[in-house]
């Protein structure tokens, strides 16, 4: 259990430190692409991916750094992609909004809201057709649930009893828009999902242990042929919708709301638990920080040093060679 929490903590810390570094470096204007940070939401990525095996697959949307890293995506190739370098995971063609690492089972992320959900269901359909004991988890936000793509996908997954785990991160906002103009007052996300016919669970998305527990329960059931699940996790995005700044001043949410959520920081919570359980010493945690820091330094210096793709590559890979 403590070893497990240490791993979960490390996964979250990696995401946090990577994103902090991206935010810091972003102002240099060398990562020239839209970047959606997930600081504050790390527990969901780390907790869910901890319930998956290496053969399982993950897909995501616009806010995908955490999911990519938690599934084991290559850090250096992700950073290089943000810098638009030839060594990036998409050779510079994708940027932050299009991550992929097939080796770890991260099949792709794309920023059209809701749109990767059916694609993820399709990968579950492929596994199901081939009778592979594999599941696909797809991450999306509270707004993606408003898209017909989500609904139609859930229905199809139910019809075929597909091994797919729908993971909804409810961070209260779609860009600057709260729930009121988007979804009926009081009708929860998991109630909706249950109405469609999905098995559901709802939990605190800032507690990585709880997230993992929910995900394990769902994943076990899916593997046992129980069909698709929908997990709803409440959480909060700390930074602006897109970009490295805080934007509590612009008026769509209050500083107090932000502070209340920051107090529920998933990373600090896990750290306190670890220290309280006394199974890990502060020294070990410091060593973890140093190790991650070195890894991140390395990824950034590799990315900065890497070559840009040649202009002619813009006309390549449109079709199979």
């Amino acid at each position, binding site marked *: 259990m403590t070893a497990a929490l240490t791993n979960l903590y490390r996964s979250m810390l990696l995401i946090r430190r990577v994103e902090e570094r991206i935010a810091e470096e972003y102002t240099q204007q060398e990562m020239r692409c839209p970047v959606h940070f997930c600081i504050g939401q790390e527990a969901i990525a780390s907790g869910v991916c901890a319930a998956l095996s290496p053969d399982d697959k993950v897909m995501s949307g616009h806010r995908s750094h955490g999911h990519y890293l938690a599934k084991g995506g290559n850090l250096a190739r992700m950073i290089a992609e943000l810098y638009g370098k030839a060594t990036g995971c998409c050779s510079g063609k994708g940027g932050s909004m299009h991550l992929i690492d097939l080796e770890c089972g991260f099949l792709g992320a794309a920023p059209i809201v809701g749109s990767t959900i*059916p694609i993820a*269901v399709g990968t579950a359909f492929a596994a199901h057709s081939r009778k592979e004991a594999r599941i696909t988890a797809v991450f999306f936000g509270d707004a993606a649930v408003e898209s017909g793509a989500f609904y139609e996908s859930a229905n199809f997954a139910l019809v075929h009893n597909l091994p797919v785990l729908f993971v909804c991160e409810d961070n209260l906002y779609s860009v600057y828009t709260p729930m009121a103009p988007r979804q009926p007052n009081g009708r929860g996300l998991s109630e909706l999902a249950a109405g469609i016919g999905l098995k559901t669970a709802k939990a605190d998305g800032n507690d990585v242990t709880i997230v993992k527990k929910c995900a394990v329960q769902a994943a076990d059931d899916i593997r046992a042929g129980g069909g698709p699940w929908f997990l709803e996790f409440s959480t909060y995005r700390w930074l602006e919708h897109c970009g490295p700044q805080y934007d509590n001043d612009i008026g769509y949410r209050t500083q107090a709301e932000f502070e209340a959520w920051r107090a529920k920081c998933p990373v600090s919570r896990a750290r306190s638990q670890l220290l309280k359980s006394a199974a890990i010493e502060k020294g070990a945690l410091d060593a973890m920080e140093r190790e991650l820091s070195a890894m991140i330094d390395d990824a950034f210096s590799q990315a900065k040093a890497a070559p840009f793709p040649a202009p002619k590559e813009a006309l390549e890979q449109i079709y199979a060679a």
Partner: protein
Amino acid sequence: MKDGRLSNRTLTYAHAINEALDIALASDPSVYLIGLGTPDPKGVFGSTKGLVEKFGTARVLDMPVSENALTGVVLGSAIDGMRPVLTHQRVDFSLVSFEQIINQAAKWRYMYGGNVGAPLVIRMIIGRGWGQGPQHSQSLQSVFAHIPGLKVVMPSTPADAKGLLLSAIFDDDPVVFLEHRWLYNIEGPVPEGDERVPIGQPRIVRSGNDITIAATSYMTIESLRAAELLADIGIEAEVIDLRTLNPFDHQDVVKSVKRTNHLIVADTSWRNCGIAGELVARVSEDAFSSLEQPPRRVTLPDAPVPTSRALTDGFYPHAIDIARLAGEMLGRSTSSLSAAAESAVPLDVPDNNFRGPF
């Protein structure tokens, strides 16, 4: 008989498609068919008939009326090792899934830097006639052809229908495969076995030196009829079936125009920003000095498709219209043509066996 190419048996276009699907399903377990009605008793105008009995419901599937998500589903399966064939009985229904087709499938290989491709086929039938009207008669090839990353194929003969569909299914990129309902009962020789026709090349279906008529899909049939009419008045038209509209290879047409010095392009769809204009533009750019006359287009007028046959009769261009235009361009009288061109079939059905309502 081993060598299919030597075969001279004939099949209908619908049967040729059915055979291609049958061969693909039999030869590769990653191939599956899905679509509204794909396994139903009518079998998509016969093109999927008998396949569910042969390959089972796990490989020949019906689906909910959720074309958007299902396009994502087939895409997801394609990036994960499958070779899906999604079918829509009308191209018009695919509009609900344009996000998946255009933002996702068309770009998948590219936007992930070539990590993985999306080998899927979307078969779509172009409707026409019998009052299909504004929402069941569109012909959207030019929209698909505008999108880099899609391959767009429109066979006009049974042999091409089979051979191009096999190529499409085993192609590693997304292929939009457009079948014209009026071709379904047309018969032609079709090789047996897994004989593929490569995607990407037009086909010269009739040779001639006086004028080049390049056409898409069903307009190839009308163009061939026009060429026959023209032959009666001593004009030898070269007819080229474009077959693939993206990636679009216009070099054969350029070569032909360099010989004939005249070009008509005949397409089943609208004019503005259509493939006919694209070809006219390319030939104007690349064979400008060979053209003795401005190139001309034969297309639908830029109007939604009406329902009443009184309105559609004049809406769709016919062989005689192409022939008259060719005569005009070459400065020849076409007044003798009209009588010969009278059709025995009403203009709003593909053939005399058609009884509606589809």
